[in-house]
């Protein structure tokens, strides 16, 4: 569970995208190459550092903006809300963790689902949000992912899921684990219906998320430099008692090890996604 790393980072390290102390947040320092970037430029460039290709983490809204047709997104099931059914309390009540996350994000949960179009081609869509409790998968995330898969089974439009998650949400105990089985089972139905399913693995995709719907795409695309793994780097280092090699569990490593079809820079992503959903969808053939 590399949620461990997320918590660890949260505790010790300063926020990755360290904002410089300049009024108006006009400038930002690239956490990878330390180059100082003009925020406006960065936003125009899909939040990719034009010096080192570092991909800043995106919110669901930003992904919609960059990759899908303007105003085409219709959200569904935004009403589903997590509950603290185990009355789970560690250093904090789960219920108050939820509340904080909801207030900060103005959203109920760590995934947004719905339909959108990409160059006028309709797709089903789920976008995870690491900024909401580390994108962890609890009952609501599992339910919404399952619902969008079921929608795709029904409407037969291709499904694209952007994964960005530290894994299962421990505060929901075993029911969070079961979301892995729930979402993967739904994908079996989708696969039988021969509806194309594409995953875009974003930084990070680990634990219970990677070991379920994230790894089951017909086509798997990774954003450059993303951490994609089952176990997190810290857990592995603790287990094997040695430092991990550079680039271990990063997108490019996964490409080499046959786990993803391609590592695609964000500016090229829309075109690739459009081409793939069009090429894979059997109904496109008929149209011609």
């Amino acid at each position, binding site marked *: *569970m590399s*949620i*461990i790393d997320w*918590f660890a980072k949260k505790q010790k390290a300063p926020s990755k995208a360290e904002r410089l102390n300049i009024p108006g947040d006009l400038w930002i320092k690239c956490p990878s190459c330390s180059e100082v970037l003009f925020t406006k430029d960065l936003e125009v460039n899909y939040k990719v550092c034009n010096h080192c290709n570092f991909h800043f983490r995106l919110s669901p809204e930003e992904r919609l903006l960059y990759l899908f047709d303007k105003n085409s997104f219709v959200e569904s099931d935004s*009403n*589903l*809300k*997590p*509950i603290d*059914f*185990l009355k789970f*309390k*560690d*250093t904090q009540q789960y219920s108050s963790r939820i509340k904080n996350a909801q207030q900060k994000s103005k959203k109920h949960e760590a995934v947004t689902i719905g339909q959108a179009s990409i160059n006028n081609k309709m797709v089903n869509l789920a976008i995870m949000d690491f900024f909401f409790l580390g994108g962890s998968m*609890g*009952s*609501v995330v*599992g*339910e919404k992912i*399952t619902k969008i898969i079921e929608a795709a089974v029904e409407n037969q439009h291709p499904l694209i899921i952007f994964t960005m998650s530290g894994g*299962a949400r*421990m*505060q*929901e*105990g*075993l*029911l969070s*684990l*079961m*979301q*892995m*089985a*729930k979402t*993967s*089972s739904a*994908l*079996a139905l989708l696969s*039988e219906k021969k509806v194309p399913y594409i995953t875009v693995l974003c930084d990070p995709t680990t*634990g*219970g998320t*990677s*070991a*379920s719907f*994230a*790894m*089951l795409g017909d086509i798997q695309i990774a954003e450059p430099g993303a951490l*994609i*793994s*089952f*176990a*997190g780097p810290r*857990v*592995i280092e603790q*287990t*094997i008692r040695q430092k991990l090699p550079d680039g*271990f*569990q990063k997108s490019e490593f996964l490409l080499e*090890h*046959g*786990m993803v079809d391609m590592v695609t820079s964000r500016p090229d992503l829309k075109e690739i996604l459009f081409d793939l959903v069009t090429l894979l969808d059997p109904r496109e053939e008929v149209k011609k």
Partner: protein
Amino acid sequence: MTKILEFEKPIVELYEKIEQLKALSKSGNIELEKEIQRIEKRAKKLKMDIYSNLSPHQIVQIARHPNRPDSSSLFRLICEKFIPLHGDRQFRDDPSIVGGIGTIKGQRVILIGHQKGHDTKENIYRNFGMPHPEGYRKALRLMEMAQKFSIPIVTFIDTPGAYPGLGAEERGQAEAIARNLREMSSMTVPIISFVIGEGGSGGALAIGVSNKLYMLEYSVYSVISPEGCASILFRDAKKADEASKSLKITSVDVMGLGIADGVIPEPMGGSHNDWKNLSKDMKKQIVSDLKNYKLIKPEAIRQERYKKFREMGEFQV
């Protein structure tokens, strides 16, 4: 030699005292006889007190007991005939997952389970029951064979988790687990699972997408190890005790969450001294379930399983 757990020590000490007194009492001392009876009574009460009030953390220790019955041994105790099968046909035969084909009361079954060792040497060979991707791929191969020949599947879950190591990551641990979840869900043969010891996270679930899930009384099933949870959420590795309470991981709790369909009772304090009786109860459960599933159409068996997992989750609409 059976390992003595910390909370078992007072009981064991009393029984040792009883043995000592018995040795002395050969001379026929009536006072001594009375004392023995007194202590025996006390021991019995103490045992009852301790074992009926085990904390989740103590149950975890029983679930991890080195003498706890293992998958391979249970296969052989439960089946009249059992032939082990090996290999993923791709990379390696992972000794941390075992499997084979056999008969249970004459009925054909494919059995698959995590395999721990009972001593250090065996545990190293079995990687402490922590599979690599090839272990899950072997399991899938056997399940696909079961599906092909319409043979019911029985799985025994007993793992701290999927192995977090270099090779495991390189060879796609996440992919292997994910694929198993998906493929198990679409099988039309019945799948019956037992958590026989430790049900550790995704590494457990990867052979546990079943129609029926049973917990042995002293087994646990958890999204993360209590130790892991403690060090992450409680920021104190020593709070495993507390974490194991919060996580709801005991057989009764897992029943309560609607995830387990039943609990298989064990002798007081756990099965590590009595594998045989446990295996009889497990066999009874399997035989009864298989009998029921014979009356159900393959597609309905699949749908039952789908529905079961589809409904899991607690949230507000």
